[in-house]
């Protein structure tokens, strides 16, 4: 009963929010490659990882809620290994079919034996989508960090990112395959430290 109660509550909320055919639900599992580049006065460090994760989204009419989670183990050079844990939760508003605005927190943690570096970034995103051919869709998110809370010595200056996705949905089965490329850059301490992180991810999802 304690397990079922939140599900029932969520179902009731969705039912009240709109008719069933206006609801869109998608869940998926991802696997990908991550490259993290850190540049500062001491030099440039490149860390690589293989990540796995999950993601999902639900939309009711023009409003949506999406999340992503991924983790991996970064290795490279002489830098100690770090575990990467990332997650984000975005609320979206889609005023027109091809355009949406998103906002939400994006958290990242880099865990090593020296400690845990926490990044909490609040991002405002613009999403453009297009139906390309039949079941193939293209999507691009572009964002800017509008607020931050990071526990690194340097002060956070600015952050930008983009996320390009190509999705193929099987016509007779609710299964989708997405190829995603994501690039982010953050500048700290008056551009004396730069952090770039890129993801190339394959997502297998149900929708």
């Amino acid at each position: 009963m304690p397990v079922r109660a939140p599900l029932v509550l969520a179902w009731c909320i969705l039912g009240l929010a709109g008719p069933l055919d206006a609801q869109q639900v998608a869940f998926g599992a991802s696997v990908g490659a991550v490259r993290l580049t850190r540049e500062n006065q001491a030099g440039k460090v490149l860390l690589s990882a293989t990540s796995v994760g999950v993601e999902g989204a639900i939309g009711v009419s023009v409003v949506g809620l999406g999340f992503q989670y991924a983790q991996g183990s970064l290795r490279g050079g002489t830098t100690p290994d770090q575990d990467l844990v990332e997650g984000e939760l975005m609320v979206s508003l889609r005023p027109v079919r091809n355009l949406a605005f998103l906002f939400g927190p994006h958290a990242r943690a880099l865990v090593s034996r020296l400690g845990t570096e926490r990044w909490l970034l609040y991002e405002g995103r613009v999403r453009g989508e297009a139906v390309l051919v039949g079941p193939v869709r293209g999507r691009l998110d572009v964002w800017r960090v509008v607020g931050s809370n990071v526990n690194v010595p340097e002060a956070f200056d600015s952050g930008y990112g983009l996320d390009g996705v190509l999705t193929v949905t099987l016509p007779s089965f609710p299964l989708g395959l997405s190829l995603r490329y994501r690039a982010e850059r953050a500048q700290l301490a008056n551009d004396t430290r730069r952090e770039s992180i890129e993801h190339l991810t394959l997502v297998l999802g149900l929708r």
Partner: protein
Amino acid sequence: MIPNRVVAAALSLGFVAVPASAQTAETLITSGVQAYENLDFDAAARLLRRAFAVPSGDSLTTAMRAQGLVYLGASEIFRGNSDTAQAVFGRLVRLDPRHRIDQFVFPPEVATVFETVRRRTIATVVEVPSSTSFSIGAAGLHVRVYSSSVHTLSAEVLRRDGTLVRTLYAGPIGDSLMVDWDGRANGGAIVPPGRYLLSTASLDANGTVARAVRVPLDVEVAREDTLPLPDPPADSLLLPERRMGGPGIEALAGGVVLGAAVIGLSSALVPASELAIGRYTVGLSIGIAGIFGFLQQRPGRPLVANIEANDRLRARWRAERLAIERENAGRLSNVAFTIRAAAAQVIDRGQ
């Protein structure tokens, strides 16, 4: 013989003594017949002629008038006035072409003269029911024509202005003839309701009309209401049969813009990419898919599924229309006539 003549004369005088204006035509005929039977042919002829001369003579029934004429003709024969008798019998034949001499009442010489006159006199009478109702395809208006002698007859249906509508018969007639009118014109079309004339013309040996009979007809035509034909499918119900510009343009613009943005913006964001293959793979895939989508959905390309759907819709409409047309054809052929006939008008030309 003498006593009879005396009695007849007395009877005649007795009747003559009554003022003629006070005697009805019917009474005069009865008296004339009695005088004939009493062999007083002069008195009979006088009384019978007077019967047709008095004002009430016009109101005599055909049967009474025929009786008077046959006794008058017989009286004239026995008075030696053969020409007069033939004229009287001619009048009788024109009055009633079906009249025959009762050979139990009149001697053979009277019957012989009458038959001679009847055979050379062209006279017809037309009998039409005062009201007839029938459906198209069933028996129509029955018209019976009785003739006094063999001659050529034509029977037609005319409009009131004399325009020919239908020729019912043209040919010889003996004793009688039955013709039917099914309510159609010569071309087979059903006549519209209105007033018509049934016209018969009897021709003599020279081809001249000797007698014409016209019967006014009032024709009512009742048809079953037909069903309205369905309108063709409205444009709003038909799917577009060729691609519009929308989807193809969206694919092309979306694919090119998004693909270029993925490559261009990521190059600006992370110039020294360690996953360049990723950005190019995703960006180029999006762009190529957009171009392919445009080619597949380019404006003007036929939409086979929509064309088939529209064809099915049009086929349903055609089938529905055909069914209604058949139903209407059946209803149109189900025509009910009511024909009312007025009194016949007879026109005789000098015989």
